[in-house]
């Protein structure tokens, strides 16, 4: 039965105008049971964002199939069940923070999903003071937080986050990770999470998918069998470090597989 998972089979995608021998994604297979928290990690340019966009139904692919909980990505979106945090915050510059956050509740009302109170969302990401500011008056991290709050607001079935915490300091990041885990647990959301932080991938996920570049493909899928909730004890324990090291090692081989021999020369 495919109704309870995201299934990507033999996915290949080359961007138009790019070298067709080095597609952005090559023969990617991936299976994500409903309710899982899956991290994507891999070298820069390996196709993580592309994969996310394909799963969200935002990008055509060349061959292969993508099904999301037994339906197409498009139909998922129709139910307003997908929350997206793109790599760039993608805010509406002419609306203030509060209206940006409450945007989903004003769009596609017929999907009939309730949405969170924007003020609560802003408190969640520590921006209640900035509610009336406009995007051009925000710092980079603040913009990212607005995008996160916006995605949280629709209580999505599937949450696609592309490096959502990259511009945040460790403590804000940690606080938001907790918020994210809370949301995930309460709503049994499925999360596909792109990150560059091995530690973040391991502390948050059930599964870490390591990708490699040129062409973009799945290098290794690692299960994180740590108990939940991931409280301080778990997060600082030795098992975590072992896992971290395994992911890092996998990432290193992925990185070396993708990097051409003379890729990184010292100047």
């Amino acid at each position, binding site marked *: 039965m495919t109704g309870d998972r995201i299934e990507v089979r033999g996915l290949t995608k080359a961007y138009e105008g790019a070298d067709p021998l080095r597609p952005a994604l090559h023969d990617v297979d991936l299976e994500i049971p409903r309710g899982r928290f899956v991290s994507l990690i891999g070298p820069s340019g390996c196709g993580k964002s592309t994969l996310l*966009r394909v799963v969200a139904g935002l990008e055509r692919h060349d061959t292969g199939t993508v099904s999301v909980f037994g339906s197409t990505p498009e139909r998922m*979106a*129709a139910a*307003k069940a997908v929350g997206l945090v*793109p790599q760039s915050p*993608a805010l*509406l510059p*002419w609306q203030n923070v509060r209206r940006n956050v409450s945007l989903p509740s004003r769009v596609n009302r017929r999907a009939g999903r309730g949405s969170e109170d924007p003020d609560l969302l802003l408190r969640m990401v520590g921006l209640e003071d900035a509610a009336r*500011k406009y995007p051009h008056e925000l710092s980079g991290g603040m913009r990212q937080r607005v995008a996160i709050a916006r995605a949280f607001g629709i209580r999505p079935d599937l949450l696609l986050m592309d490096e959502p915490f990259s511009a945040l300091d460790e403590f804000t990041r940690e606080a938001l990770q907790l918020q994210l885990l809370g949301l995930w647990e309460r709503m049994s959301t499925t999360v596909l999470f792109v990150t560059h932080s091995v530690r973040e991938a391991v502390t948050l996920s059930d599964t870490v998918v390591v990708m490699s570049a040129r062409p973009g493909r799945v290098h290794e899928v690692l299960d994180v069998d740590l108990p939940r909730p991931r409280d301080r004890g778990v997060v600082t324990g030795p098992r975590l470090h072992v896992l971290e090291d395994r992911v890092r090692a996998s990432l290193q081989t992925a990185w070396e597989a993708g990097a051409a021999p003379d890729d990184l020369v010292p100047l």
Partner: protein
Amino acid sequence: MATQTPARPRPDREEGPRGAAPRVRRRLFGIGLWMPATVAVLLCGLAWTAVAEDQPYLLPPLREVGTVLVEDPGLFLGNAWSTLRIALLGVSFGAGTAFVLSLVMSEVPVVRRAIMPLAVVLNVTPVVALAPALVVAFGFGMAPKVIVTAIITFFPVLINMTTGLRSVPVPVLHVFSTLHASRLEVLLRLRVPSSLPYALAALRVVFPLSIVGAVVAEFVAAGSSSGLGTMIRTSAATARLEYVYAAIACLAAMGVLMLALITVLERRLLFWHESQQ
């Protein structure tokens, strides 16, 4: 809940980050704004006077133009109002239709492909040639003149809006897609606001253009007995140049006023756009 002072559009920021103390500039603001225009106008006035002395049948002495204006302001006000009404009605119809059409065209490519060539045809058809037919169809009233003005103002808005509606950052479009926003929602909540800088540039073009349109309409459409265009025409026919140029001065004043208005509008609507930073 802490209430914050809302960040508002800022009036004057030409000189970039490295400027003198802002306070001083504020003080000079008024002068800086009006001086250059005044000087330019004065210079033109001088040049005018020189030419007028040399070739009186080309340009009337400025003094005479002034005299005419001062002696019977009512005459000019009345005719200006008559022309302005046509201009405003025309630009409302023209820009309005263009706006709506551009929305439809941006959503339905077939419509775009069907309409664009017709719009071009309409645009390159000299309205002067159409005017008689319009009078036949709509009689001697304001209608044909409003239509001529509307035709003239239609195209710049259509074109600018078409470009503007397409100028949307892809990631934001993606967010709307995942929300499964309807095409209408994407249009109204994303494309239309994104196109505002283009729309306002178009308005800056077509508001003055509407005045020209109204004047030309008065020239060519049958049944014009009032308006600055009629005044220019009849005065030119009897070589009463001071009236011609007094009327042009009124037109210019109307145009400058309209532009000032749009600038104010722009400051309020586009405070978020990079062009205002």
